[in-house]
């Protein structure tokens, strides 16, 4: 029988018996010739490591403890060699003078150990001849031995599987190394000093002892328990803290029973495991015998090898961390992701989910994170017992803890205690983490005087103008000199006529940059308010109101109006309205109607100032209608009373050139909204007879004013043919995906809004007003009828042109019906 690859004949046999140890070992006999294979490249460090002065003879005696007859220098050389490890452990690399060592301080406690005979010596020899595989195996066995020590560890999934043992016999025909361990005094494992090569790894035993649940099933199938009794026995006797829950009582005098129990627990074990050896030594023999008896087929062998290779691979780095370590790492990683303030730091995700689910918040964020993380870490199977729910629960609690960590984080970073973690989790830069990743571009964020000053300072509008381009400064100051308060309104309107370019308007309300920054300020306020709303705290919208700059007299054009020049300014309006009270809304609309002619959208949508609207401008118009007009309508219909509407109309008439506004689609829409709403209220009130006479007379007055400003210019509300053609063409160009049928036939400019306006104008007016209206737009009425009749005559596209014809009549009749007329088949008749 051979151990450790020894030649079992000759001296070693005596060694094994433990009787003839006195005889010095012959190095050449035990040397495997490993060094012959290649030059070791880095052995220049050997001197430093092992001591340069050591002299090695061939007459080693490893059992120096009982060698009174050993030559002194041999003992010394051994001591030196062993000392280097101790020194490395205790005082680092530094080479200590040999003289201090001859006392062998480190070795002293061992003397008693080594005084026992045989096995000890084997043990000492062992490292010398161990192959790499054997070493690994040995280690693994020690892990098994060490495992029970970790039974007390927290996670339930680590509740001990029987120490996994590899079935080595088939793969390694050589002697079974663990047997060498059997006789070792347990303390030996805790005195790694005495090992030679295997020892540094052996020191790592405790840390390697636990297995991630992932591996367990595999190991499980590998069969267990070979050599186990001895290991368990050793551990049981060892002074180190041992787990009491260990399933194996492990008395030193081994009985086969515990093992048999294990066998029952794991029927999957390979057949040769069924009858466990009574003693390790026997066991080794037996199992080899068994494998001889039942030779594995090539396929089985191959499979076994593959599995073993897998296990080998897994085991290589297994057990480097305790569960506690893992938990810590997980928590730390999670703490980078989770937040206690999801709406602030995880805004997009949170709100997106709410939008997607239609306002229902499903799973909590933390659950999602826990689940995702479980998925990531490969724990989703729940470990050995497939308790995925338990694993999830654990992960959830981890997330909870991580949130706590995340909460603490800001304060900690203040104390620079991140530096303390440096090295634990690699390099941690407090300036650069997932929240503040490294940037490709570093844009300095020093506060430029311009914008912030303007944004902060409402009152010093004049001073802040210094930041706008010099030309603007000149024009503005010139205007200031000339314009008296009275003439201002008129001037504005005339100015608006001359330019589609919004920059002129913008420059008079503080400059483009200022307006854009204002919009951003408003957005910030709104976001802040919305966050408060979610948080359920009290809402204070005064900051928002101030950011809107309504009624701000320091600019020629109210900045609020200029805000509406930008799409994002329009889009934010509904959200602003959520936070304003009625009074504020009214004030806002008063400002809006008061400065209507400065509104960029009016200028764009008027055929006079913008004869050829671009596609994007048309889109802007559409957006305005869809967003802002809707707000106005809903405000007027829900919360505005008659007097307020009258007031708004008055603002519009007083401060603007109404006939100009009426040339724009949006302007006409706005006027329509106001007067039709007023008409509706008046009808309601008429029915209930509560409208006071002053109110009626006031309304008549306002209406008269409006009508006067429109009189003689009513036909101008109809845009010229060139304009409508252009708009139609542009819209057609943008709707490229529309069916070819519609695209082929000549599209028509939708004039419904104009007829709506005329209808509501006529509805509120008296008979003489209506007569004037009809007189002025007679041509348009008959023109429309003609077009409609022409369409009816067209041969091609019958359904399409029929539809258009109907549409034209419908629009026209909207107006005519107000006066009790109806247009049909080219004739205008009285409505019956």
């Amino acid at each position, binding site marked *: 029988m051979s151990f450790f690859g020894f030649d079992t004949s000759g001296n070693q046999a005596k060694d094994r018996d433990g009787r003839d140890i006195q005889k010095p070992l012959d190095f050449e006999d035990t040397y495997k010739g490993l060094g012959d294979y290649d030059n070791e490249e880095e052995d220049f460090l050997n001197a430093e490591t092992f001591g340069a002065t050591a002299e090695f003879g061939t007459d080693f005696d490893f059992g120096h403890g009982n060698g009174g007859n050993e030559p002194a220098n041999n003992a010394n050389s051994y001591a030196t060699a062993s000392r280097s490890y101790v020194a490395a452990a205790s005082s680092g690399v530094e080479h200590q003078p040999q003289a201090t060592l001859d006392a062998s301080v480190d070795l002293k406690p061992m003397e008693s150990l080594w005084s026992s005979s045989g096995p000890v010596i084997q043990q000492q020899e062992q490292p010398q001849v161990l192959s790499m595989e054997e070493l690994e195996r040995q280690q693994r066995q020690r892990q098994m031995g060490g495992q029970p020590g970790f039974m007390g560890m927290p996670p339930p999934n680590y509740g001990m599987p029987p120490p996994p043992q590899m079935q080595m016999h088939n793969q390694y025909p050589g002697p079974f190394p663990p047997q060498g361990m059997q006789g070792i005094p347990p303390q030996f494992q805790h005195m790694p000093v005495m090992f030679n090569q295997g020892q540094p790894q052996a020191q790592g035993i405790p840390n390697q002892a636990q297995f991630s649940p992932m591996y367990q099933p595999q190991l499980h199938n590998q069969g267990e328990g070979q050599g186990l009794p001895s290991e368990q026995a050793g551990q049981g006797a060892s002074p180190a803290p041992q787990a009491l829950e260990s399933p194996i009582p492990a008395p030193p005098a081994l009985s086969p029973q515990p093992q048999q129990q294990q066998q029952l627990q794991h029927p999957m074990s390979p057949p040769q495991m069924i009858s466990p050896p009574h003693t390790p030594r026997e066991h080794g023999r037996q199992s080899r015998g068994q494998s001889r008896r039942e030779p594995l087929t090539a396929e089985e062998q191959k499979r076994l090898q593959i599995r073993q290779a897998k296990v080998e691979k897994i085991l290589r780095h297994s057990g480097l961390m305790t569960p506690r370590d893992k938990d810590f790492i997980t928590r730390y990683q999670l703490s980078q992701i989770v937040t206690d303030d999801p709406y602030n730091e995880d*805004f997009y*995700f949170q*709100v997106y989910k709410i939008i997607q689910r239609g306002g229902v918040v499903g799973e909590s964020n933390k659950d999602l994170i826990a689940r995702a993380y479980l998925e990531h870490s490969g724990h989703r199977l729940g470990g050995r017992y497939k308790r995925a729910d338990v694993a999830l629960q654990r992960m959830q609690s981890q997330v909870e803890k991580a949130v706590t960590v995340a909460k603490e984080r800001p304060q900690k970073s203040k104390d620079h205690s991140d530096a303390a973690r440096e090295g634990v989790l690699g390099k941690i830069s407090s300036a650069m983490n997932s929240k503040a990743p490294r940037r490709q571009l570093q844009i300095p964020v020093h506060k430029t005087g311009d914008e912030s000053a303007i944004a902060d300072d409402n009152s010093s509008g004049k001073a802040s103008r210094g930041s706008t381009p010099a030309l603007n400064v000149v024009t503005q100051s010139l205007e200031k000199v000339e314009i008296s308060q009275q003439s201002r309104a008129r001037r504005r309107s005339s100015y608006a006529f001359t330019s589609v370019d919004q920059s002129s308007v913008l420059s008079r309300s503080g400059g483009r940059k200022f307006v854009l920054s204002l919009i951003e300020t408003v957005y910030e306020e709104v976001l802040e308010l919305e966050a408060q709303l979610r948080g359920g705290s009290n809402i204070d919208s005064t900051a928002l109101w101030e950011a809107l700059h309504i009624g701000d007299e320091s600019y020629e054009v109210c900045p609020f109006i200029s805000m509406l020049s930008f799409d994002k300014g329009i889009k934010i309006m509904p959200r602003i309205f959520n936070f304003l009270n009625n009074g504020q809304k009214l004030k806002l609309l008063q400002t809006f109607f008061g400065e209507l002619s400065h509104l960029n959208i009016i200028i764009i949508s008027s055929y006079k100032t913008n004869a050829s609207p671009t596609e994007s401008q048309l889109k802007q118009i559409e957006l305005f209608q869809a967003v802002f007009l809707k707000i106005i309508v809903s405000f007027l219909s829900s919360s505005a009373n008659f007097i307020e509407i009258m007031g708004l109309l008055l603002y519009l008439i007083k401060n603007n050139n109404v006939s100009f506004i009426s040339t724009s689609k949006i302007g006409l829409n706005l006027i329509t909204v106001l007067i039709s709403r007023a008409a509706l209220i008046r009808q309601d009130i008429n029915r209930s007879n509560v409208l006071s006479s002053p109110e009626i007379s006031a309304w008549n007055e306002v209406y008269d004013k409006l009508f006067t400003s429109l009189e003689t210019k009513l036909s101008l509300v109809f845009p010229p043919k060139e304009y409508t053609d252009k708009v139609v063409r542009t819209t057609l160009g943008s709707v490229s995906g529309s069916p070819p049928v519609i695209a082929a036939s000549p599209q028509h400019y939708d004039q419904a809004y104009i007829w709506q306006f005329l209808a509501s104008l006529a509805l509120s007016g008296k008979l003489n007003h209506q007569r004037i209206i009809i007189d002025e737009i007679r041509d348009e009425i008959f023109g429309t009828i003609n077009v409609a009749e022409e369409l009816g005559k067209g041969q091609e596209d019958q359904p399409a042109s029929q539809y258009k014809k109907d549409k034209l009549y419908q629009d026209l009749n909207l107006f005519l019906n107000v006066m009790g007329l109806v247009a049909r088949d080219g004739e205008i008749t009285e409505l019956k």
Partner: protein
Amino acid sequence: MLFFSFFKTLVDQEVTLKNDIELKGTLKSVDQFLNLKLDNISCSNESKYPHLTSVRNIFIRGSTVRYVYLNKNMVDTNLLQDAARREAMTEKK
């Protein structure tokens, strides 16, 4: 956190990554480094990277991804604007 937050909403959606290798797959998870885990991947230039034909799912280090193509309707641009504003706000503080 904005991008992390953003990509989290794309989980279970189909995305296309492009660097030199162009991959298409279902996004399974993303972390704070924007490491991506894709499932059911397909490579658009498989002739160049034949080894990817046998790969079904893949974990990609975030820093190696240059582009991520998204379907337009997977992104709520208005919300994204707001989120960006929030991000800027918190940075200012």
